[in-house]
């Protein structure tokens, strides 16, 4: 069905032009397919693709429900923007940029679409090994050092993932997510303790990918060291972690899990809030635009984790809307930081006195839009997303914690970004450095990603409806669990 289109073979031609053309065409095709998939999942409900026709719960299945379709579409749009930007010249820093990019895309899409928890691990590894290659693309000291940390951490993460899978398989005897959600309710006390340990280990692993508080230290350095299009694509990788937490801890360890219901919540709460705080402090202390953007990614992760921790359909819907917005905008900000870097010569992207930029207007407008969207000022999408999130928490006892922290993190982002904007665009002296103007294709890529923010507001109605429907589907066990198993299946 759709998998055939997504498992794109990497282009193996020698000519960079052919690779670019093929890559862009492939990305465009994925965008189209993903949007069609979204529409189809909205109309006809969840779709199953049973690999090798081994019926669930035994075979491996690919599941395209509304949530997965939304995430795939988001990835596709972001990847298209990043690839377009890379075609402006960044893809020539190393040899295998395009094939690795496609592998990474396949890994991310696969992780979103799989309905089998071991397959999730395999797709994680696919996207990770591609990301290792992409991270050191271009070479250099910083990249090697960041890459070494990143690879080591993720290898340990993968090992823990396998331990968790072993525990869950050992107790429930299945790897299918839907089947596991049923079997988890039927365990006896001793097995339940093991399954709980497995579930918490999974939270740890996904928290590492998502950059949750004690596990987020790798993120700012890694993201700021990576080449711009790579960093932009990485903006969706933390969301893979959030998505997995959402999937595993809502479907398997969600409200229907009997004794094991909501085991992650006591941990998720404080960690989400602290992630938000630490991200905001990091943003205020950032010396350059790339690090600032990376810290804003941590802030957005904190915000999303709060919504996940609420475990209500409304909060999940808000999280989905906010996730689309924040991924695209942070991707755009990474690209923008690179544009600014190019134009400022030795000052790079640091907030110091430097020469004037060559095209301050084009870059400045883009920065202004991005900053407004990130901070969450009306009329852009960040405002809608935060509003939805705040509304969904109204009835909660923890509201006294959520509201001030969320709003203060917005203020911190506002201060940090205003400081960045004034020092980047206004604190300058002398004539701009001579050099080429920015390639049109790069600016086009940045504006394409930024256009998502107003579009998310203009088409806000359908978008909110869709995310609400996706969240309802995820929280409704008859749709997220029983619909994925054959009729009349008795565990």
């Amino acid at each position, binding site marked *: 069905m759709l998998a055939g289109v997504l498992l794109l073979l990497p282009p193996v031609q020698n000519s960079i032009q052919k690779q670019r053309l093929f890559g862009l065409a492939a990305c465009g095709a994925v965008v189209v397919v993903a949007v069609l998939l979204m529409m189809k999942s909205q109309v006809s409900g969840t779709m199953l693709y049973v690999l090798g026709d081994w019926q669930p719960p035994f075979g491996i299945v690919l599941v395209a429900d509304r949530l997965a379709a939304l995430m795939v579409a988001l990835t596709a749009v972001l990847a298209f923007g990043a690839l377009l930007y890379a075609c402006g010249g960044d893809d020539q820093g190393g040899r295998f940029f395009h094939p690795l990019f496609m592998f990474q895309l396949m890994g991310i899409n696969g992780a979103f679409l799989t309905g089998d928890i071991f397959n999730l691990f395999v797709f994680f590894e696919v996207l990770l090994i591609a990301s290792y290659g992409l991270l050191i693309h271009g070479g250099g000291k910083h990249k090697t050092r960041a890459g070494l940390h990143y690879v080591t951490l993720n290898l340990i993460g993968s090992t823990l993932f396998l331990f968790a*899978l072993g525990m869950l398989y050992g107790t429930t005897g299945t790897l299918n997510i839907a089947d596991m959600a049923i079997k988890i309710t039927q365990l006896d006390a001793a097995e339940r303790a093991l399954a709980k340990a497995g579930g918490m280990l999974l939270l740890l692993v996904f928290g590492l990918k998502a950059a949750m508080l004690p596990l987020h230290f790798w993120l700012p350095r890694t993201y700021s060291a990576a080449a711009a299009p790579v960093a932009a694509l990485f903006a969706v990788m933390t969301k893979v972690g959030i998505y997995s937490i959402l999937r595993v801890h809502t479907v398997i360890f969600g409200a229907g899990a009997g004794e094991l219901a909501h085991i992650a919540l006591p941990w998720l709460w404080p960690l989400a809030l602290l992630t938000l705080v630490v991200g905001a402090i990091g943003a205020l202390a950032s010396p350059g635009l790339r690090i600032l953007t990376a810290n804003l990614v941590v802030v957005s992760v904190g915000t999303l984790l709060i919504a996940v921790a609420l475990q209500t359909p409304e909060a999940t819907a808000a999280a989905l809307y906010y996730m689309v917005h924040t991924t695209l905008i942070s991707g755009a900000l990474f690209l923008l930081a690179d544009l600014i870097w190019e134009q400022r010569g030795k000052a790079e992207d640091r907030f110091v006195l430097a020469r004037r930029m060559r095209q301050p207007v084009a870059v400045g407008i883009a920065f202004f839009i991005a900053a407004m969207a990130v901070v969450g000022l009306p009329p852009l999408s960040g405002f809608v997303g935060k509003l939805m999130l705040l509304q969904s928490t109204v009835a909660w006892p923890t509201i006294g914690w959520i509201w001030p922290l969320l709003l203060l993190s917005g203020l911190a982002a506002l201060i940090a970004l205003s400081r960045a904007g004034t020092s980047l665009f206004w604190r300058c002296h002398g004539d701009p450095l001579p050099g080429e103007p920015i390639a049109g294709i790069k600016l086009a890529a940045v504006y394409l990603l930024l256009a998502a923010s107003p579009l998310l507001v203009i088409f806000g109605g359908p978008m909110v409806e869709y995310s609400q429907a996706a969240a309802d589907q995820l929280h409704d066990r008859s749709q997220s669990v029983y619909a994925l198993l054959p009729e009349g299946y008795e565990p």
Partner: protein
Amino acid sequence: MEAVYAFCVGLLTACGVFLTLRGRTFSVVIGITLLSYAVNLFLFSSGRLKLAAAAVLNSTGDYTDPLPQALVLTAIVIGFAMTAFVVILAMRGRADLGNDHVDGRIPSEESALHRHRGYKS
């Protein structure tokens, strides 16, 4: 058998954790390798340990769970690729950074002070 098996897995894990916490890339690589051995054995045991039983359904009805074996196979392949990658990266780090510490610099009091000032070094 179970006790010995569990002891081996535990010992491998403990050694792996200890080695990954060291500062030099070589011991970290060895630690990761040990950890992946431990996890492979652990996965294998998740289908319950059985002696002299085939991994396929047969007429006698005595069989072991074949699925963990498939999982272990996948995990071995992936782990192998990852280890190869991290070894190459460690060698590149040795060449680029001039030493084999994970942080890319030889720890000393001065650099510890330096670290507090921000990411640039």
